[in-house]
């Protein structure tokens, strides 16, 4: 499990607009091309947050998605605005808690979707079959995984 301190406490999550331009004023009469202009440093929000209002961060707990590239303690970028389709890795509510699973949706007849299941990457883990008793309640689609390597 990575330490939560990998990111500063209280750093805003997923709601940032484009970062404010970094403006530096120098007293040099001629200006300096390095510091005088308005530059914008690369901002990970631009890469990871496609829909600001709909993006939420979660943290994975458990090893059943290892083969899908998600390990215990990884940070997950979750986009609620995307519609979960067959094959997507989703966050879904199952029995009152959130699970990270792959959505598998069988092709149905007449263009209607067939049976759906939430499937772990580990084949030893029993799939959660969607039924009337266990409805599919998707929180959002996982769009990025952030893991700490060092």
């Amino acid at each position, binding site marked *: 499990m990575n330490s939560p301190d990998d990111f500063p406490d*209280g750093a805003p*999550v*997923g*709601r940032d607009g484009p970062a404010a331009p970094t403006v530096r004023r120098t007293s040099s009469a001629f200006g300096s091309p390095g510091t005088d202009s308005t530059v914008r440093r690369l901002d990970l929000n631009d890469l990871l947050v496609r829909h600001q209002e*709909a993006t*939420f961060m*979660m*943290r994975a707990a458990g090893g059943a998605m290892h083969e899908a590239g998600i390990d215990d303690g990884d940070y997950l970028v979750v986009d*609620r605005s995307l519609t979960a389709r067959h094959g997507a890795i989703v966050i879904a*509510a199952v029995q009152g808690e959130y699970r990270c699973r792959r959505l598998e949706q069988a092709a149905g007849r007449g263009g209607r979707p067939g049976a759906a299941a939430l499937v772990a990457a580990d084949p030893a883990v029993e799939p959660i079959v969607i039924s009337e008793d266990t409805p599919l309640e998707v929180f959002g689609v996982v769009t990025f995984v952030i893991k700490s390597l060092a």
Partner: protein
Amino acid sequence: MYALVDGNNFYVSCERVFAPRLAGKPVVVLSSNDGACIARSNEAKDLGVKMAQPWFQVRHLEKSAGLIAVSANHELYGDMSARMMAVEARYAPRQEVYSVDESFLDFEGVRDDLVGVGRHMRAAILKETGLPTSVGFGATKTLAKLANNIAKTADRKPGSYPAALAQVCDFGRLSPGELDALYAATEVGLVWGVGRRTTEKLKAGGIHTVLDLMRADVATLRRQFSVVLEKTLRELHGTRCMELDDVPPTRQQILVSRSFGTPITRVEGILEAVSEFASRAAERLRQQGSVAGAVGIYFMTSPFRTNDRQHSVNVTLPLPRPTADSAVLMRAAEMAVRSQFRAGFRYAKAGAILTDLQSAGHEQGELDLFSALEADAPPSVDPRARLMSALDTLNNRFGRDSVRLGSTAMGSDGAEVAVWATRQERRSPRYTTRWDEIPIARA
């Protein structure tokens, strides 16, 4: 046309987005001291929990009916509100954020099918943020509010209004006959701006429904009631008396108050609490660039604790010169407490109120929150103003109470000082604003 978009049971809905175990359960959100129910799920409403009802009165429902109570998590609600408002803002050229869960949108000149727009917006908010809303359209703000109320009630209580009006209700699409039927089915007290006392007076005069009010004689009403009611009446008839404010008006008073987790009996406890409240109020005062001409304080026993002897104090001290200086305001508040305190009572609540607010103008110098600490900011004339500004900046950046003025520091009376600190035993994680509190997904 105006739209009013309102989050349904907003605080509860925010909690449910991140805690699926709360779905379908009776849930209440408690005020920051866990004293009163400030939001209720529909299931909790069905159990008979009233708005602002003290928690100890409904606590037994935890065991008997599975009621779930959580402490208010304002950091979460603030972020979810910002997300909701941003989605809404896509749909109209102008928006007035009216409260944490309500905003007015101006659809002036929009010729589209507004019910369709409303449904689309509602679906987008639900999909992106997980928050359910109700949308009301009307020619005035008062009508939009009323339409919103009908949209919400039609959804929650099937049969109360036509089902077609559930969730999204556009008065502009209804015939005069249909509108009259709605107005006749709606209690006059539900109209925006008609308070409880006015409602009682209206009912005594035979005015029970919105339709009764609309058909009442304006001249008679004007004699019996304030001009506010006349304005409300004109708004109900479709004449705009309230415009969309792009800039919220400066607050005319700033109140910070709280119920104590455990009653306070000693003067030190009240002093500590009231001076802290004054300090927070002063911070807000500086944020809006105002100075206060008077400081009010109050503290009282709990009217709900019927076995306790009752006592309440409410005094206002005018200041020699308007100020935004925390130290001055806190000292005034402390003086007022000392002059009024009486021993032998179990005080349950206290507050500090800054009134007689005016623009800081020139005398205070530049109080912009960040400029005072920026290297290239012009030096402020008033060193105390700079100190205040620095205080706010640090607390803003590093969290409340990172830095306090000497007189708000924790007193020697550790025991009683600790008891009034916010009691939030049941607060949920700040899922969207703290890295160490983000939701866990079992993988």
